[in-house]
């Protein structure tokens, strides 16, 4: 029983990270029907830039907690910029040419380049990211949980809620929603849909960079940290549905918990397998995802 609760809690933590990355996929998919195959590298870069900032700030005498807080907005801004670059270099041309393969290839290529740059700047070894919170587990009943893990769950939720609130309340957010529901019509109404798509990419990478600095303190930061996470988030986005905000959270939790259970009861080696199995099952049974809506095609 104890172990069950513990597994669920660990699963939730991992699942929320997947959820945030998948949320990023959803943002760009809704506006442009494309997504960033180098999203994992956006997470990597976010974590590594964050790490360098923390080093820089702590070397100037700031406490680690304060350094982490100061670093956050800077990393978010970096994420925004990185996402905009991906969209401009990789996606814009492909959307214009209506080429399905173009943007996939281009975002993969940018991902490879970013990974290579990260390797050259930060080295090939994984680095320890100093934790802003004490690394002593809090014991709640049968469950031991790290303070940083609580921050991950809360931070992830806060990030998604903030973006949702922005989209619903602000006028620019309405432009995003309008573009998502009908790009051509939005364009005719004077909305600069190109800019909206760039913006959605910026937000998407920002979410990934944020996920990077959230998870780095409890794992390690390194050039290859993002690849598998980005991939898992694919599974989450498909399981939850690429069109549903609630979907990515639930999808993330399902995948996270399934993985920790597989890791414990079968073997840690097989931890990554249920993702694909779930993915194929969902596609076979409900292709639009658990929370997705079927789109009626127009003729």
């Amino acid at each position: 029983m104890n172990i069950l609760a513990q597994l669920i809690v660990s699963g939730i933590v991992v699942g929320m990270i997947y959820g945030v990355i998948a949320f990023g996929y959803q943002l760009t998919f809704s506006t442009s029907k494309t997504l960033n195959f180098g999203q994992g590298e956006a997470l990597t870069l976010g974590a590594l830039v964050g790490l360098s900032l923390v080093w820089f700030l702590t070397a100037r005498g700031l406490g680690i907690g304060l350094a982490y807080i100061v670093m956050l907005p800077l990393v978010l801004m970096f994420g925004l910029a990185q996402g905009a670059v991906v969209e401009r270099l990789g996606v814009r041309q492909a959307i214009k040419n209506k080429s399905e393969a173009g943007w996939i290839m281009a975002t993969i290529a940018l991902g490879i380049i970013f990974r290579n740059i990260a390797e050259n700047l930060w080295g090939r070894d994984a680095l320890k990211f100093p934790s802003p919170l004490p690394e002593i587990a809090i014991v709640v009943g049968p469950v031991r949980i790290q303070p940083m893990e609580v921050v991950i769950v809360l931070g992830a939720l806060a990030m998604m809620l903030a973006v949702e609130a922005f989209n619903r309340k602000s006028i620019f957010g309405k432009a995003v929603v309008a573009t998502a529901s009908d790009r051509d019509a939005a364009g005719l109404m004077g909305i600069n849909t190109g800019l909206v798509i760039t913006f959605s990419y910026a937000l998407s990478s920002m979410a990934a960079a944020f996920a990077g600095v959230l998870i780095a303190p409890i794992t390690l930061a390194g050039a290859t940290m993002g690849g598998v996470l980005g991939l898992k988030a694919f599974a989450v986005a498909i399981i939850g549905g690429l069109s549903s905000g609630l979907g990515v959270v639930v999808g993330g939790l399902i995948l996270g918990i399934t993985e920790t259970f597989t890791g414990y009861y079968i073997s840690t080696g097989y931890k990554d397998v249920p993702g694909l199995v779930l993915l194929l099952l969902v596609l076979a049974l409900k292709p639009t995802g658990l929370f997705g809506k079927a789109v009626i095609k127009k003729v």
Partner: protein
Amino acid sequence: MLVKTAIRTLIVAALVIAPFAVTSPYYLHLLVTIAIFAIVALGLDIVFGYTGEVSIGHAALFGIGAYTAGCLVMHFDLGFWPSIVLGPIVAAAFGGLLALPALRVTGPYLAMVTLAFGTIVQILINETVDLTNGPLGIKLNTPFFLDLRDYGDTWSILDMSLKRMRDVEYFYVTGIALLLAVLVINRITASRFGRAFEALRDAPIACDCMAVSVYRHKVMAFIISAAFAGFGGVLFAFSEQYIAPNTFSFDLSVQFLLAVTMGGRKSRLGPILGATIVVFLPNILADIALFRIVVGVIAAIALCVGLYAVLRRRDLLPKLAPPVALCILFFVLALTMRSITDFRLSIFGLMILFVVYFLPDGIVGAAKILLRQITPAFRKRHASTQAEGEASHAITVTTDAVSADALLEVRTAVMQFGGLRALDKVDLAVTAGTIHGLIGPNGSGKSTMMNLLSGIYTPTSGEILFEGRSIAGLGSSQIAGRGIARTFQNVQLFGELTLLENVLVGLHHSYKSTLLDVVLRLPRAIREERAARQRAADILSFVGLRDRADEEARNLPYGKQRLLEIGRALALDPKLLLLDEPAAGLTAPDIADLIAIIKAIRARGISVILIEHHMDVVMGLCDVITVLDFGQKIAEGQAAAVQANPRVVEAYLGGAVAA
């Protein structure tokens, strides 16, 4: 044609003499690797080039082929021949497992699923140590078939040690495998299956409505492609003599994709060229001096080609300047770089970006386009149809007796879109052999009815009976298979196919030959293809487009496109033909042709439902007319009666001023 034959002969000749020219075992091995990669790339092209879906998991399928060989050798002591048979089968099975769920939805799903699959396969190979020997990998031996040294002294002119003999022999084995792959893919792409792959990319909905299931053919393309990857994998395992999980990585999948895109899609030469580049790439990137030379040569070629093209056609300048400038810039960059080993992946990534931006059609595609632009004489030529036939036999109806019963019966059909009721309990009965008009103001539900009848929408409630059997809820391709063909309000042709090929896609149903027949070129396949081409030509004559049979459909003027759509629909041998505004946008002479064609169609016993806004067309042709307004049927009857109906007048012209 001549160029093609020349290139083919050259390639075969090069394959034959290569081992005599290349004496270094290292380079001979590299040639073998190129052939293997080319096989995988050619297979990937079926999915990527033809159907337009992206697979980022071909390295995993390749690995599955290799590990099938490895496991057969390690566990059962079986050798090359069982492996070469089983490898493709196992890979195809895994391909099916992925494609069946992933292709149910359109969008980037296949790319996402195959990417995940690639990672999982690597993990599984590492984990299932009992089966695959895990990270340690599997050793196997290159097979040795004949000891040619027994066959006289001709061979002694060359160094023919046992090892060299083995290498040369295996080179020929992979060479033959490559030629076989090219042959098989040529046959598949030239068959009805290849046409379906291309058609579903151009216009998926129209493809389904021609009884060619988009889903089934996409899955089929992926399975064929997976089999080729597995085939390549087996050859690879025996060539490398050692396989380990790390080889079959994400990067390898991307290399395969790059090979196809860079070389040129939808061609044989392209993927082979791309595979050559991709295999040589690590060698080039390992040595800075060689790298500089290669980049320099590329920059020089780009400059020469660019200059020549611009001198011939000045307007090409803005299009050609950026890529040429980038090539030169890259050369300068290469000169300033001290080491490239750390930036290998970045250079690889930049290459992909360059290809996506400036070579979307690949090297072969770009060369073709350039040649065509510079020398207008070099045009794409299609196999022409020589057969001249009797147009009157082209259109046949399979119903023996035209009965007076309703061919189609719609009972209280409702179609609800959210809050909008596009069709509200509409009844419709179409008598066999008649032209049934469907009119009404815009937004009255006419097109919705068409989409309901052709299976694009499933009715919210109500029944649709065709020849007494319910068709509500069936997919478009099934309904088309039952004998309902349609045209589209906004023309949906297969733009890159020729007129003849467009009609041939409609004739897809008339074939009985299987993929195996096509690959082996059994008489049945040849006979059927010939017969279908003859019929397609006849159908084109029927709609008056016989003389343009070999043009690409997208180059037709609008009016002719509509006629071609009708021809394509007739190829389905329909009992009921749905025409959705066939006269829209047509010129007066075209409309006259159209009316004659529709009359001829009815004369052959095919029933027609006609949606049209040209009232003279409707009133002149239709036996019965149904009028819809706001999703409801407001009138039905013969032309004169409908015209006189006050509700119809009101719907079209607005209500009378309040009395």
